[in-house]
C-alpha cells in the first residue's frame, strides 16, 4: 500500500493518496514509514519540477497533499519522533523586501529549498531592512534570501544589504536575491552576493555556497 500511496501522491491523486494514508494508519502501519514514503514522493515531484515535467500546479497540489497527510499522521507519532529531523544542509532566512507584497515566487523557492534539505524561515512580505537585521540576529541563518517582483524594490534590496553590512552581519551571512526582474546588473546594483533566476537555480546556488562553507 505504501507504494500505491507514493504513486498517488506523485500523480496528484489527492483523494486516493489521503484515503490510502488513512487506511494505512487504521491498519497500524508505522507512521514514520508513511512520512518517509511521503518525503520520498515529494522529492520525486521536486525532481520532476527541476526536469521541466511538472510546473506550479503540481508543486502546489503536492504541498496541499503533504500538509493533509502530515496532519493525519501527527497524532500517531510520539513527541520524540516528531522532533527527530534529518540533519539540515543549512539555514535560510527569506522574505519579500519592503514595498513589495508578492509572495508566490518566494513560496516556490521555500518549497524547493525545504525538500532539498534546508531549514527555511519565511519572514513574509513587505519586510523593512531593520526587520531583516533583527531576524538574522535571532535565527542566525547561513543565507539570507530577498525576493521582489517590482523593479521599484531594487532600492529596498540595496538598503537591506547595506543594513545587514552596517549591523556587522555581512561576514556571517551570504545574501541572494531573486524575482522576475532580477539579473546580473541588479545584483551589482544591490550589492548582494548572488542571484537565481528560479527556484531550481536557487537550490543549486545555495548548495554550492554551503559546500564552500
Amino acid at each position, binding site marked *: 500500500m505504501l507504494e500505491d500511496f507514493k504513486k498517488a501522491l506523485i500523480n496528484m491523486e489527492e483523494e486516493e493518496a489521503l484515503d490510502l494514508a488513512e487506511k494505512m494508519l487504521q491498519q497500524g502501519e508505522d507512521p514514520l514509514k508513511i512520512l518517509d514514503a511521503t518525503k520520498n514522493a515529494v522529492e520525486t515531484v521536486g525532481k520532476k519540477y527541476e526536469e521541466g515535467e511538472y510546473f506550479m500546479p503540481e508543486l502546489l*497540489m503536492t504541498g496541499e497533499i503533504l500538509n493533509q497527510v502530515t496532519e493525519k499522521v501527527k497524532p500517531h507519532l510520539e513527541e520524540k519522533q516528531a522532533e527527530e529531523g534529518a540533519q539540515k544542509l543549512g539555514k535560510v532566512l527569506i522574505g519579500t523586501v519592503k514595498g*513589495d507584497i508578492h509572495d508566490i515566487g518566494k513560496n516556490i523557492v521555500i518549497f524547493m529549498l525545504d525538500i532539498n534539505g534546508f531549514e527555511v524561515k519565511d519572514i513574509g512580505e513587505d519586510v523593512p531592512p531593520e526587520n531583516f537585521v533583527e531576524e538574522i540576529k535571532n535565527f542566525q541563518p547561513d543565507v539570507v534570501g530577498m525576493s521582489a517582483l517590482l523593479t521599484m524594490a531594487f532600492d529596498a534590496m540595496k538598503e537591506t544589504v547595506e543594513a545587514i553590512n552596517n549591523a556587522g552581519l555581512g561576514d556571517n551571512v551570504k545574501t541572494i536575491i531573486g524575482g522576475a526582474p*532580477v539579473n546580473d546588473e541588479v545584483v551589482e546594483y544591490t550589492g548582494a552576493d548572488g542571484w537565481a533566476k528560479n527556484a531550481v537555480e536557487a537550490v543549486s546556488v545555495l548548495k554550492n555556497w554551503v559546500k564552500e562553507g
Partner: protein
Amino acid sequence: MMVENWNKLSPEEKFEERFKSWMNPDITFASDKAKENYQQITQDWKDALALKNKRVRSLLNVGFYPAKYAEGITCEDIMYDYNKLGEAWKKFHFDFQPENIMSSFIIGSGKVLEILDYQLYQWPGQGVDKNSGYQTLEKEYVKGDEYDKLINDPSGFWMRHYMPRIFGSLKGWANMDPFTDILELPNVGAHMIPVGIPDVQESFKKYLEAGQEALNWISAVAEIDNEIVSQLGVPHIVQGISKAPFDSLGDTLRGTRPILLDIFRRPEKLQKAMDALVPLMIDMGVRSSTQNNNPFVFIPLHKGADGFLSREDFKKYYWPSLKAVMLGLIEEGLVPYLFVEGSYNERVDILNDPDLPSGKVFYLFDDTDMVKAKKALGERFCIAGNVSASMLNVGTPQKVEENVKRLIEDVGKEGFVLSHGVALDDANADNLKAMLEATRKYGQ
C-alpha cells in the same frame, strides 16, 4: 466612428474603418507638425501590423514613473490630486517626447477607491508606501464551490457576491435579490424590499458618490491626455482593454494558488467558467476600444507564462478561451494587443495559432528571447520588445543603446516595434532617453 451599416461590414472592412477613425481623431492639434507627426506614427503602426513598415517605432508603457521623475510629487499624490497627476504626466511626456502617449487613466483615482473601500489592492498611502505603486492583495474572493453561481449568472454574481467582498462600502449589496426576479407586477414590490434596508441604501449612496468622483477624475484625465496628444501628436495605443479568461478568474476572483489547484480539483467547472467569461471579455474589449476610438485591445497575460503551467496545461486551460476572445475581437475589426508578461521561451510557438488571421494581432514581449519570438511569429504578426525594465533602472545609457541596436539587428525592422518589459514604475531618465534616441537612430 461607427458607420451606418456597421453590422454588415466584414471584419476587414471594420478593421479599415477603425484605423481610419483612429488615424484621423477628433482633436485639434497644437501645430501642423504635431498633426503630421500623429499621422506618420499611426501610419507606421498600421504598416507594422502588415509587416511593411519602413522604420521602427518605440512604444512606452508607463506606470508610476512620471511621479518619480517629477521631483516633489509622490505616487500617492498622483492618485489623489489630479492637478499633480497632470503636472507629472505632462512633464514626463514633454521632456521625453515618446512616440506614444500612455493614458493617465492607468493610475486610477485614490478617491474613488477610498469611497468604495476597495479591498483588492493596496495603493500608495493605503497599505503601501506613498512612493510605491499599487499592488494586488491576492485572496480567494470566490470560493471553489461557487463556480456554478458564477457560471449561471455572471453579472448577478458580481453584484451580489463578488462586489460586496471586494468593496467594503458595497457590503449591503449582498442583501439584494437578482434582477431576473422581476417578471410580473407582484415581483416588483418583492424585489424592492431589500433595497429599503439601511445597509443597502448606504451602499447605494457610496456607489453614487464614487460615480460622481469618477466623473471629476475622468474629466481631469481627458484634459491631461488631450493636451499631450495635441502638443506632441502622438497616439494612444493602450485604451481598449480585456483579459484572458484564465487570468480573469485567477488574478482577482479565485487567486493564483486556488486556480492552479482547480486544475486538479474541479477542471470541468474551471472550463465552464472560462467559457462563460469569453463573451463578456469580448464585449468588454469591443466597448472600451470603441468608446476610445482605438483599434487596439490591450490584453495583459499573466498565468500562462513559462513556469506557471506546463505546455499541455497551457494548451488545454489557458489558450483556447484566450483565443476565443481574440477571434471575437478580430471579428469586430479590432487588433488584440497581447502583452506577454514574463517569459514565453518554451511556448511562443503556440501563439502562432493557424486560426488567427495574419496581421491582426500585436504581441509585446516582456522577457521572451526576441529572436525566438521573431522566428515563431515574425512571418505573420507584428511583435514588440524588449529592453528589460531592470536595464532601464540600473544599466547605463551606453548599454541601453547597444541593446536597442542589437534588438533591431536581430529582429529586423519590418513588423517590429521597440519597447520595454513591464510598465515603467521606475527608471533612470538617461537610460530611458537613450532607449528612445537609439530607436530613432537605428530604426530609421
